[in-house]
């Protein structure tokens, strides 16, 4: 072949870049409610609620704990043209509160295999009734995949399995206590040795995962069979560990902050770097989506700010931000990447 002529691979690479750049010129408007309303046209007016709509007021039965009620999750309310209810539908059994046997949506934090940042993936698990415990168990069970490394599964060691069992998680007095059945370590931590800073990453996986589940910035105390641990993953522990949200990659909400009281219209801002720049968002109240849509931040390999406003009546709300996974097959191991939850109040 003439050396000045491009190969098929070169053409393919540049065509792919050109098509994606061209496609990113547009940002589709939210249309789900319009689609569903059209689909129901001709039917009687009603407010419907799909099976997938799971209203989740989180009232976790944390033993002896101050239960921080939060609201999570995927609820989609379909408003037909006249919106007149036809009577109460059978409520899903887990609609109002999470208890044993209920599905619960969580953000589990992984280590980026290519750096020391952390990334989250959305998972749905069956609750034990203790959402904090559910979150830690989900972390222990999460398999490494692609660029998502779970150091709690002995990542890069001969056999991946949970490195410990969690006994209990409680939240009281401004501290989340996570109790394990053994000292926390991994083969990698042993190789790296004490004081290298390696252990901060798995510690942050734990802290950010359980903080997200409980909607709190409270620090996490690690205990082993009831006794405070003085070491984990080669890191010396002197007390509860604070979260380091600045290490979170790809979708980083900035305002409102967790628990903030704000005025309407609420300005939601942050920065992101997602495929095609797409960031989905929803705002829920009492488990029902009251606002939802897309916003656009950075695409490919550059962060860019995103911002949008939501006019909301006074009340307590949960904001969820994420990137949908459009992959299929083996790549579709999670439906949602880079999930971020936070609660806020409109005064």
């Amino acid at each position: 072949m003439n050396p000045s002529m491009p190969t098929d691979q070169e053409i393919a690479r540049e065509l792919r870049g050109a098509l994606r750049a061209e496609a990113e010129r547009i940002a589709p408007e939210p249309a789900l409610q319009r689609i569903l309303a059209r689909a129901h046209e001709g039917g009687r007016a009603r407010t419907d609620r799909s099976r997938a709509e799971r209203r989740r007021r989180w009232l976790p039965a944390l033993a002896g704990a101050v239960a921080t009620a939060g609201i999570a999750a995927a609820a989609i309310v379909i408003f037909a043209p006249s919106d007149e209810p036809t009577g109460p539908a059978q409520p899903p059994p887990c609609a109002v509160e999470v208890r044993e046997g209920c599905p619960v949506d969580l953000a589990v934090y992984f280590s980026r295999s290519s750096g020391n940042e952390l990334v989250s993936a959305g998972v749905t698990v069956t609750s034990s009734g203790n959402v904090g415990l559910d979150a830690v168990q989900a972390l222990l069970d999460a398999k490494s995949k692609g660029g998502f490394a779970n150091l709690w599964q002995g990542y890069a060691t001969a056999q991946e399995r949970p490195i410990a069992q969690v006994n209990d998680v409680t939240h009281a007095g401004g501290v989340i206590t996570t109790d394990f059945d053994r000292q926390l370590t991994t083969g990698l931590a042993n190789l790296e040795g004490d004081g290298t800073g390696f252990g901060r990453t798995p510690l942050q996986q734990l802290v950010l995962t359980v903080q997200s589940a409980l909607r709190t910035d409270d620090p996490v105390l690690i205990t082993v069979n009831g006794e405070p641990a003085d070491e984990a993953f080669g890191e010396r522990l002197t007390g509860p560990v604070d979260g380091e949200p600045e290490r979170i990659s790809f979708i980083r909400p900035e305002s409102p902050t967790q628990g903030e009281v704000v005025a309407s219209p609420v300005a939601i801002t942050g920065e992101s770097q997602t495929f095609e720049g797409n960031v989905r968002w929803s705002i829920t109240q009492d488990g029902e989506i009251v606002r939802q849509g897309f916003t656009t931040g950075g695409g490919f390999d550059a962060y860019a700010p995103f911002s949008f406003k939501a006019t909301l009546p006074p009340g307590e709300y949960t904001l969820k931000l994420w990137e949908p996974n459009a992959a299929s097959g083996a790549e579709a191991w999670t439906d949602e990447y880079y999930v971020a939850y936070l609660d806020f109040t409109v005064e």
Partner: protein
Amino acid sequence: MPDRDADEAVSELYAAHYARLVRLSFLLIHDHGRAEELVQDAFVALHGRWRRLREPHKAIAYLRQAVVNRSRSELRHRAVVERNPVQPPRPHESAEDTAVSTSTREALLAALDGLPRRQREVLILRYFLDLSEADIADTLRISRGSVKSHSSRGIAALRSVWGEGR
């Protein structure tokens, strides 16, 4: 209850695929507003067919087919009625492609628009949606051999414009 099943399925498919399908249609017809309408039509049609869909796990394949077919119909309609396809302004420069000059990208896209319909559809499905040959064949209802053939001819045609924008 079937409506609830359809609502649930359409909501989940919407969350995962709506934006990409709108962008797919936009690449095919170059009209953002119509692309959104066509894709919404496809979702509404899927909702109506949900109970009759024999293999619900293939719903995304159904949606892709519907979007490509409706986009193709849109182009035919436009060719007959307007004779002047909508031509959008060319894209602004974006950071990820700084190694490629805008003129090369524009030349590639312009050449893509000039390809025979099948070649163009195959290349967009392959290089925008990253579909496999099998999925492209399923979407366009052609054989995998035809997918290979259209793809190689399309790439060869694009090679001819390579130097023009550089």
